């Protein structure tokens, strides 16, 4: 685990520390089994091609879970993810180098919570944001 960050250290417009992923077909099968999503377009090329896809594609919910990992790693064990949303705008394929990251948009105190809001996204090897979203997280405070 990375070091614990505190709310006071987070600056608006600062990047969310990136997380790199590169899914193999094997990982997609592993995800299918672990999540229970057995739709064939994620592991059976013939079905994917018949659905006018370029080949097998990465599960949307796996990309969503990676964004969850990005946020949990960022807030650390003393922080908390309150809410995040993800929009599956374009597809991603196995073998591509994917980067998950984001940018802080706001920080404020809400009652006891030291809140940070961010835009988050997954970008493909060409730098295209295929999977954008937003997040609301809570960091511990030094005070």
């Amino acid at each position: 685990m990375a070091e614990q960050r505190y709310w006071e250290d987070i600056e608006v417009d600062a990047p969310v520390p990136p997380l790199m992923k590169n899914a193999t077909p094997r990982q997609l099968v592993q995800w299918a089994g672990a999540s229970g999503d057995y739709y064939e377009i994620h592991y059976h090329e013939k079905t994917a091609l018949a659905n006018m896809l370029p080949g097998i594609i990465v599960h949307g919910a796996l990309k969503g879970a990676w964004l969850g990992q990005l946020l949990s790693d960022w807030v650390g064990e003393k922080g908390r993810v309150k809410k995040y949303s993800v929009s599956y705008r374009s597809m991603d394929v196995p073998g591509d180098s994917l980067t998950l990251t984001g940018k802080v948009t706001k920080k404020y105190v809400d009652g006891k919570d030291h809140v940070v809001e961010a835009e988050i996204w997954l970008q493909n090897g060409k730098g295209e944001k295929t999977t954008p979203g937003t997040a609301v997280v809570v960091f511990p405070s030094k005070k």
Partner: protein
Amino acid sequence: MTQGSVITDEMKKAIGVESEPTIVLIEKEPIRRFAAAIGDNNPLYRDEEYAKKLGYRSIIAPPGYQPQYSFPIKVPQMRAEAGPRFRLPFTRNLNGGDEYEFFQPIQAGDVLSITRRLGDVYERDGRMGKMLFTINETVFRNQKGEIVLIMRGTGISY
């Protein structure tokens, strides 16, 4: 000229009607398997002793965990209890996106009661004609009746 609406009275009536619950037990091994599938080696999702030191009863589920796909203990017996159904006007479907709102961490040993409801339905004119958006809300309550997670998924039919 715009085409007529594809939203039927059947759909409008379905909005907000909650299904009977599906009951699932959150178990340790599926959490570990799920974390491995993401490629997340956070010990909170694997090592019970470690999680206990941080005040949890057992290992916790990572964000994005899909308890609705656990093999259930109990499911609604009657088709009608599984929530209202309606015919979609199109045959092609896409998963548009998901929203996760967390209230408490999901811990191994939790018995979750899962209910679903259609949150909203609306239509848009797209490049390929009309598109129907359905917002499906899934609410997860723990053994104390406390909401631990709300998921909102956007389905797109076109």
